[in-house]
């Protein structure tokens, strides 16, 4: 499959461009140190540090595909990339996945060791359950990034939209605090969006290793994933119409 070859090459490319991953890893470690101190001061269990280590891990490993796509649209490169016998959209998604996979491993390795050292406790039992879900969630984040990038066909600059999306993800996904500390109504509202299962849904397994919770989150992520793929395919078709009508 062509996309597998693209993802593999993107992963190799990312291995040769380690600077950005290292910068993200340093930022990640700084966040972990601050939050671990905060949780310790609040008297919370070590599991909460592991929770933040998990949520921050996938968010910081996420490739900024939206910027890549926006630049392709702005510079007009997209018109030329379309003239190849592989879908531009799915080639970009494959590139993001390959690139992100390397970051997941690099940042994840650093984070795992750091969280262990900071908490003094080994990874909780729920981590094993959460890892496949984290990978699925990461896939969804890449799809979101591609969708945000494609909006450049209409709005030109995707950064304001990305900013809003990112803040919704942080807030309704429970990036820094598990949704359990939110009021009941906000928890319910968050679970009506795709954001809650993308972070809190599986990272919660760090302190609540419930297989039923894992299964529910997996179903939610799969459902949102299917919806997102369908939306992305539709958005791409619309983008090609815009390219045809407004020019490249």
């Amino acid at each position, binding site marked *: 499959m062509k996309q597998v070859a693209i993802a593999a090459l993107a992963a190799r490319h990312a291995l040769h461009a380690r600077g950005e991953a290292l910068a993200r890893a340093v930022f990640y470690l700084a966040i972990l140190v601050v939050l671990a101190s905060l949780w310790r001061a609040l008297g919370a269990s070590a599991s909460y540090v592991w929770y933040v280590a998990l949520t921050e891990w996938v968010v910081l490993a996420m490739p900024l595909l939206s910027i890549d796509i926006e630049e392709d649209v702005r510079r007009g490169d997209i018109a030329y990339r379309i003239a*190849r016998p592989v879908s531009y959209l799915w080639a970009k998604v494959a590139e993001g996945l390959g690139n992100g996979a390397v970051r997941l491993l690099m940042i994840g390795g650093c984070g795992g060791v750091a969280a262990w050292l900071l908490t003094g406790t080994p990874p909780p039992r729920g981590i094993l359950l959460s890892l496949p879900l984290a990978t699925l969630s990461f896939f969804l984040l890449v799809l979101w990034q591609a969708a945000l990038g494609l909006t450049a066909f209409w709005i030109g600059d995707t950064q304001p939209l990305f900013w809003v999306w990112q803040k919704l993800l942080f807030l309704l996904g429970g990036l820094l605090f598990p949704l359990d500390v939110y009021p009941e109504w906000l928890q319910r509202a968050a679970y009506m969006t795709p954001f809650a299962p993308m972070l809190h849904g599986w990272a919660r397994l760090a302190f609540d290793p419930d297989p039923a919770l894992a299964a529910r989150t997996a179903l939610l992520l799969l459902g949102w994933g299917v919806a997102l793929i369908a939306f992305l395919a539709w958005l791409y078709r619309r983008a090609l119409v815009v390219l045809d009508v407004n020019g490249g």
Partner: protein
Amino acid sequence: MSGAIEVEDLRKVFRVRERPKGLRGTLRYLVRPPTREVVAVDGVSFRIEPGERVAFVGPNGAGKSTTIKMLAGILHPTRGSARVLGFVPWGDRKRLAYRIGTVFGQRTQLWYHLPARDTFALLARVYDQDDATHARRRAELVDAFGVGKLLDTPVRQLSLGERMRCEIVASLLHAPQVLFLDEPTIGLDVTAKAVIRDLVRDTSRRDGSTVLLTSHDTGDMERVCDRVLVIHNGRLLLDRPIADLRRTYIRRKVVTLLTADERIALAMPGVTVTETAPHRTVLEVDVDKTPIEAVVQAALRASRLNDLTVEDPPMEEIVQAIYASAR
């Protein structure tokens, strides 16, 4: 016999959004952006035979890129028809993609941190090329383009000229029958330009591939192509052999002399001094009245030369001359 590229009355109109001024205008823009129509290509017709090398020239905004995008199947025309290798490009884009190649001077398809060999291997997968065919074709092109020593060097460490040679190899790996080249020598030094031009021409001759080249550099079209199509304001102004164009329009050359003497004087028919500075003289030479060789000999008699360059007039000037004569 059908042509490699057949274009009949091709027209493309874009709707361009216009952002009005003021708060009310901005709000209206967000809800329903006002648009105006721009005619990018206006009833263009031409035919290119298999193996022909044709320059497609015109000033910025003339409609070159839009025509090429339609021929590559990226855009649908508003009116008219086109066939590339027998395919309707916008209807058969995917099948056509296997048989055409593109080189865009300012855009890269090579992966920056990896050696070109890796991009070549990926392209083999993208174009469904089996390993044996890929290895054979790559060996041919690597030999022809002299990039054997560059194959395992990360692309970021290559010079612009080396990178461009690798870019062209990448575009030719799947043995396209039609090659679209857009400013393939932009930003290159004189030597690298000459190398790229010769390689493109020789590869087209060897493979029998058709070349459609757009460039602002008259040297590109003179060295690579046999025929020129001139487009201006979306309309085809001229379709002629390059030799005719040279005879009719490229009569003027710009000669820059860097001399040992501070100033030199050259009084010859058809030679005008357009710029002078200490040790530097720029001349405009009408080659019908005085050949370049005679100017160089006279300059050598007048002073020792530290450097000398001979340039064609810019494409814009040639197109303007064609445009003026077409009116």
